[in-house]
């Protein structure tokens, strides 16, 4: 039985995660930005955003697949 693959949103989100976690210009920018963001240093904020985005994307992907019934035969 063929199953539907991930939605475009999930694919884009996974790709976005890879870009923000890996692309050097983004972390250079965070390193150059010296003012605190939400009370924390910009580099720490950058890492937390990357980590929260990855976590949320997996939770969303699982929720989406479950709600579409992708796991039921």
């Amino acid at each position: 039985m063929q199953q539907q693959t991930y939605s475009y949103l999930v694919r884009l989100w996974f790709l976005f995660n890879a870009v923000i976690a890996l692309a050097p210009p983004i972390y250079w920018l965070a390193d150059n930005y010296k003012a605190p963001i939400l009370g924390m240093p910009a580099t720490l904020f950058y890492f937390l955003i990357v980590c929260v985005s990855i976590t949320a994307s997996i939770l969303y992907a699982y929720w989406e697949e479950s709600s579409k019934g992708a796991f039921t035969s």
Partner: protein
Amino acid sequence: MMITFGIMLAFFLLLIVVLQRIRVDEHSFSTYAVGDRSFGARYQAMSFLNTWYPGAMFTAFGGMAAASGVISFYVLSYSLLTVVLMYIMAKPVWNWGKSFDLRTQPDLFALRYNSRHIRTIAALIGIVSGIPWLVLGMQALGEMFRYISLGAMSFSQAVIFGVIVIAIRQFWTVKIGMRGVVISDFFQGIMAYIVGTAMLIALIVWLVVVKDISFASLDPAKFSIPNIGSKEGPLYLFSLVLTGALGGWCWPYIFVRLFTANGVQSLKKSAALAVPLSLLFGAALLIFGMLASALPSVAGHSTEVWFIVSHEAGGLVLLGLAGVVLLAASMGHIDGNIQATGAQIANDLLGNYFKLDTRQLIIISKFGMLGLTILSSWLACMKLPALFSLAVLAYQGIIQLSVPQFLGIFWKRGNKYGAMASMTCGFLIAVTLELIYPSGLSWAYGLTSGAVALVANVFIYVALAYLLPQPKEETQRVKSLFRLAEEHGSRTNTETSTMPQAEALFLQRL
């Protein structure tokens, strides 16, 4: 010392009770090697975490956070990205594993590339690369015992004691196999990552409220990331995160987690359960390490930060608990490593060239685990100055498996010639670069030897995929495999497989 060791002894005895209650089932080698693919999401999630995050997280990465600051967050970035890879790989890998009774990572290589010898190459790279990390894990336990003995033990005595403890623990790994590893991972994981995270959050509160430490108290240099013009090179972070995320699934003891689940849904659900736990644990540990660096007692002893702060904040009881958390994390990683290596020795080395029945495979696997435990215990007790360099070298080498592994799973065109040539050349390039430039490649803008070798690795794989097209029958076989990979995955899907049974048996015999 009685308090700290008493708390650890109580935990160890409780763990043995859990292990003793697990039923030994050896009706097939798959039962022994992958727990009969019977585990649900919660067991899978905890088993993944307990194998992924070793005890060294508290010493090496906690220490790195204390000594170097925010750059240590790279470990969390790649640890979470690797869960994304798990989510994406879950369906094809589990479906192939279930349909062809795959038990190890090299089994998957053999299936995808229709080659017996690739199984041997992948197994040898995995086994050899894993040994330095096993020895380091045992030595880290020695460090822990030295600290919690409050100076009563010398480093050598503590390492020997740690080795004896972990060697005793391996009795159950050898006896029960994967079922014992996964069930004990669940128990150990609760202690290491749920109790451990709760302790970390409490210690952060203690540092902020009692010691009045905040991010503003820290040296601004601790918040810098290697940038253009930095000593490490502008691509250093990119290289660390990329090789970490890809490399994670190259370790045989991590990869085999994909074969122990009872379905694709369990695997994906385990990713959804593991990822928030991983985020909380990792962020708490690294923030804790950074804040603790402001304590005078931590300066110069950053790798002991977990013990120093636990001791200062909660006395001997909290120090004993800190030891339990680290022991639980270490045991999960070491057990997983030993179990997967034993299975590979039987399945991918001897079993690849001799026809062995279930009983023989299990016996060889057990002897392999026993031999590895003795070898690594012996090495851990020796003074090996190059051990850490060897471990780094092993990591740069093993990530070369990632190209044939990931491209093989997601791209139909790759062939066995490209797979064998790319990973072998990548491995040799990484090792050569590491030997020529042991302190880093100054001309590579921060790229590690493994990352540079990956470029050559991908080029060889892709070039040979186009230069040596697959024969027609092989193209059809690979297409069938990919169709199968897209099927709905559950414990009962074998009967509906689109691959002819005869071909499945043929592939399995490779």
